[in-house]
């Protein structure tokens, strides 16, 4: 009996939490279906209105919504692939290989996390212009692959999740280290891939300060830049702004579900192995 009550309480707690988490997103949808002034209602409006298509067609009139979405997709997925590869490879080296200066170099990786990034804007921009990468998605993708957090994360995870014996036995089988990485390490760290993948993808999708600085041509706008141009200098049409914002957030949830699958499938895989 108490177990049932406990479980019920647990669900109540979870549902309330989920509600609180979802509310602003839902509310964004409400605003995206209402005329501008509804945003001022106190208490806030909580029922969707009838301006769904009107607001969204406004968005389409102002910006190249789908083109920008495609750019964001390219930027986010290429960067994510790069980060997963670079970080897991480096994480593997830092966790399992012995070479001179390893721990010192790892410390350097950690220290790079500690530098506040906001001041780097001007010198970094300077480098991009010297490389001739202005208005090129490369300018966002390549620097985006620097991810000290990812290396730290992968090292930590590989250290725990990949037993040394497995690597040793691969060595005895005559496996090269890259093959060991590819055949042994990668399959056993899928949850870590899923996590880092989600976080990187989301970060790149939502980042705007840097893309905005180096992408000044409409053809290469990412969705975040495109959406910000919906904000007029003084007069703001929130119905339109939040409509664009809402529809640009939805793909993220799909991406999350895809990576989440990776979580689950890796779980069952583990079960099979046992």
């Amino acid at each position, binding site marked *: 009996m108490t177990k049932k009550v406990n479980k019920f309480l647990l669900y109540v707690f979870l549902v309330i939490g989920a509600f609180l988490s979802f509310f602003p997103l839902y509310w964004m949808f409400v605003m995206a279906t209402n005329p501008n002034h509804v945003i001022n209602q106190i208490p806030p409006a909580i029922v969707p209105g009838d301006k769904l298509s009107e607001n969204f067609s406004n968005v389409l009139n102002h910006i190249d919504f789908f083109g920008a979405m495609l750019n964001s997709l390219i930027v986010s997925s290429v960067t994510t692939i790069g980060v997963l590869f670079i970080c897991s490879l480096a994480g593997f080296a830092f966790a399992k290989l012995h070479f001179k200066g390893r721990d010192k170099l790892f410390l350097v990786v950690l220290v790079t996390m500690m530098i506040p990034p906001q001041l780097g804007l001007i010198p970094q921009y300077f480098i991009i212009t010297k490389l001739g990468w202005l208005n090129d998605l490369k300018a966002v993708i390549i620097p985006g692959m620097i991810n000290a957090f990812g290396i730290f994360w992968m090292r930590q995870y590989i250290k725990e999740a990949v037993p040394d014996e497995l690597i040793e036995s691969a060595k005895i089988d005559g496996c090269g280290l*890259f093959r060991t990485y590819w055949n042994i390490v990668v399959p056993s760290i899928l949850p870590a891939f899923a996590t880092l993948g989600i976080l990187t993808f989301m970060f790149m999708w939502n980042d705007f300060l840097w893309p905005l600085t180096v992408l000044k041509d409409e053809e290469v706008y990412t969705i975040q830049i495109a959406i910000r141009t919906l904000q007029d200098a*003084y007069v703001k049409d929130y119905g339109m702004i939040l409509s664009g914002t809402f529809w640009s957030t939805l793909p993220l949830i799909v991406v999350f579900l895809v990576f989440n699958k990776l979580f689950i499938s890796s779980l069952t895989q583990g079960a099979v192995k046992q």
Partner: protein
Amino acid sequence: MRKLSLILLLSFVLILVTACSDTEANGEGSSSDKIKLDMWVFGSTGYEKLADEYMKEHPNVEIKIQSTQFDDHHNALFTALSAGSGAPDIAMIEVNNIERFRQAQDRFHNLYDLGAEEVKDDYLDWKWRLGENADGTFLYGLPTDIGPTAMFYRVDVFKEAGLPTDPESVKKLIPDWDAYAEVARIIKEKTGKPIADNYELIYNALRDQAPVQYFNNEDELIIEKEPYIKAAYDYTVDLIQKGYVGDNGLWTPEWGAAMDKGSYATLLAPAWMQGVVKGNAPNSSGKWMITGMPGGAGNWGGSYLTIPKETKHPEEAYKFIQWLVAPEQQLKSFKEMGLFPSTPSIYNDPSFKDYSDDYFGGINTAQVFAQSAQMVQTVYMGKNYKVVQAEIVNALTNVSKKSADPEKEWKAAVKRIKRQLERQ
């Protein structure tokens, strides 16, 4: 093998990267003999349409306009100019932000060298002055639109307080700031409502009417030497302490909602606020009217078109912007986008003069703002304008929200301002 796989993977990434950059490279290669002008603007200006018109007349010129969000636009321009590359051929800069770029005089073309002297008389003098350097030898940009201020007022609240409601009588009732304070008292007593719902706008209105503001032409802080700013502060503090002013933050939902509910009497605001009022208060048609501001007028907003030094085509860029902000085009911008013109010759154009708005009780709104546009004081703002403004508003906020001692707050604000000014 190990190396091979590594190279394979890396090249995969590189292919993806170059695949997406190739497409744009193709797009750019097409028309190479034309003179290409990149132009950065913020918000919706409607300049794309005008640029098309210009390109038809000048087939050798190709103009590409990029519009970005307001703050992003100015920050990106700052970064590009600071790094020394990547700036466009033409950049729009908002009037408050132009102060930030004053120290970058060497990054811009002096428009006087490109022939701007000739068109000087077409523009309002104060607007022109703000686009110059302190001694008037260097012109950063040509004026686009302006934001002359007036007094929006709620007819229903005035009626409830037993006050006259037509624009003429209201103007006569509130000719100056003493009268404004007196009306504030009456409205508070009769209706319980504040005269305005935000102290910042009152302070700004007073500041704009001062003959000098925060800095003199040598960029020295003069708010302690000259009485005007302190007087504006004191006046605002007085209204706050008497409870005549509300404390809704600008742009917050409750600020917007209050516009529709008629929970206050006046809004001291520029021409472009008409759009904000209409957007926030769709149900208040006929309840808002507009008349002249007590004591004079002010300006909030409006921009300039500048030509960064990096451009390869300064003459062509100048020719285009001179055309773009000439009176005829400004009239078009006004009709299409509501950008308030900075060229007074249009103010007598029938289509401008007779422009009326049913939402604002059918009065000739353009005329009201045109009148105040011609009354704006010519002042020098100074490159550190924003520092001072932010700290004084902070002090006012403390007085309003924390009932802090205004004298102490003023002194603390001055101290903070001075500390920040030392550093550049």
